[in-house]
Structure formats: C-alpha cells, structure tokens
C-alpha cells in the first residue's frame, strides 16, 4: 500500500530509527561480511564505515525495505577498494624486497571461511548472498549488477569449488544434483 510505504519511509528517516536500524542489523551484517571477506576486523571496519556513509544518506535510503542491502553493497565495495590498496602496497613491498609477514589462517577461522578464501571475490559474494542471505538469483543480480546467467554460473562454480575444498560428500552430492 503506498500509504504504508510512505509511513515506513518516514519511519526510517529519523536519526533515532536509523540508530535502531543500526543496532538491529550491524551484527548480522558483520557476520555476512565476515563470511564474504574472511576477516572479522575487516568486516567490522567496512560495515561501520558503510553505516557512517548511510547516516548522511539516510533520507535517500530505499524505504521499501532494502536499506540493509544498501549497507551490504557499500561495505562490499569498501572492502574491494581496500583490497586494491593492499595489493598495491604488497606489490610495493615486494619491489622493496621485504614482503609483509603473512599471519595465515588462525584457529578462529572455520573451515568454510578458509575454503571461501580460495574462491574469487565475485564468486564468494554470490555464493554468500545465496546461501547466507537467502537471496534468489534475481535478487543477487539486482544487488550485484550482474546478469542472472553470470550469477548462475558463479553459483555453480562456487559450489564445485567448495565441494572440492571442503571434501564434503553432501556438498558434492548437492553439486551433482
């Protein structure tokens, strides 16, 4: 109903409700970004920065119920930008002959997150949006800007890679089905 939509939109505009929205969704978004990125601190940083950017644009956030998707998309883009910066820094370190120390996977990382690190970023994002955020192929295409065919391809390749990395017979069965 248009009236209800406008009321929800107005309801989402206030500062107090934005803070409530943050309190309800920040932890969940950090968990999602943690699976996508494989780094909890990085996930916290980018989600926090995405909320900061969303605060000044809270009047432009989609009042139809997708501000969480906006925050998630901004956080992902921030993470991608940081990867590029880190990659340039790593290249610079290699040119200097002293590569940075690689901490390696810690004991706190679960097997799935470690396996997801082996996937390309786009596949990792697509698989996470599908299995963790319960988005359909069309919704993933709308959020990522990819075509539905590309999303299906990424899901199939991601499942295959995960079944190989996790050595889970159930996953292999699922991929075969």
């Amino acid at each position, binding site marked *: 109903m248009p009236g209800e939509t406008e009321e929800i939109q107005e309801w989402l505009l206030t*500062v107090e409700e*934005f*803070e*409530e929205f*943050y*309190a309800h969704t*920040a*932890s*969940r978004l*950090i*968990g*999602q970004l*943690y*699976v996508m990125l494989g780094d*909890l601190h990085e*996930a*916290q940083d980018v*989600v*926090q920065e995405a*909320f*900061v*950017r*969303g*605060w*000044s644009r809270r009047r432009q956030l989609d009042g139809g119920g997708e501000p969480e998707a906006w925050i998630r998309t901004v956080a992902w883009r921030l993470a991608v930008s940081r990867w590029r910066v880190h990659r340039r820094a790593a290249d610079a370190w290699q040119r200097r002959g002293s590569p940075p120390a690689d901490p390696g996977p810690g004991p*706190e990382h*679960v097997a*799935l*997150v470690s396996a997801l690190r082996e996937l390309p970023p786009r596949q990792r994002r697509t*698989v*996470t949006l599908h*299995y*963790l955020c319960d988005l359909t192929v069309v919704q993933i295409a709308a959020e990522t800007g990819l075509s539905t065919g590309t999303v299906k391809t990424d899901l199939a390749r991601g*499942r295959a890679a*995960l079944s190989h990395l*996790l050595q*889970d017979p*159930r*996953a292999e*069965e*699922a991929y075969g*089905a």
Partner: protein
Amino acid sequence: MPEPHDSLRNAFKDAAEAGQARARPVPASVISERGSRRHRRRLAVVAATACLAFAGTGAAAVTALLPGSDPDTGVPASTPSGFPSVLPSSSPLPSFSSSPTRTTPPASSPPPGLATGSPTGTPPSSPPSTAPEQPLNSSPPPTG
C-alpha cells in the same frame, strides 16, 4: 524432505553466526557522531567549492567587461618606426615630429613687447643685418 543444499546453507549460517558472536560493533551514537561530522565536512566542501566557482566566474566576468580590455580594439601606445601613423592628417591633435614646424606664435597675435607700439625693450643682441659681409667669392690674397 530437506533440500540438498541445506548442509551448505547451514555451514554458511554457522560461519556467519561465529563471526557475529565475536563482532563488537561500536555504539550507535558513535556512528551518528561520525555520520554527522562527515555530513558537515561534505557541506563545508560543497560550500567552499561553490564560493570558489562563484568568485572565479565573477572575476572572469569583470575582466571581460572592463573597458579597453579587448585587445582587438586597443591602440598601441607608440607608433612603430617605419610604419605610418595611425592618426589621420586632418587630426586636430598636434603631431610630435622631430622637426618643429613652428616655434613662434602665429602672426595674428603680436608679441607682448610690440603691443604698445613704443620700443621699450633693448635691441636684440643679435648683430644687425647691416654688418659688412665677407664676399663669398673673394679670392685669398696672394702670398708670394
């Protein structure tokens, strides 16, 4: 009957919950403060940019509208040598040539000393025109 992807889905949700449990999000007031500060900074940058653009446009307009600022209509300060003067010959302005054409007042206005008609001043210091002159074609005296 469970879907074939349920195990993978559960693994994803377990991993997310593991990260969510260890997440320490900052208080909402911190986000609001940072967002407000960022918003004010953006407004200041926009205002400064607008002021600079306005000032630049105004300065350009004033420069363009000033009289004589157009280089096409300007007259050079000095006439280049070897070129004719741009002033017409019938110009009322005096011409500043190197050879003065008239150093005495015009004839219609007598000099101040002759206005009364009586000689009051001293005669001119120049020798009188009646002084004997040497003949130009006289031969020199014979020397021997």
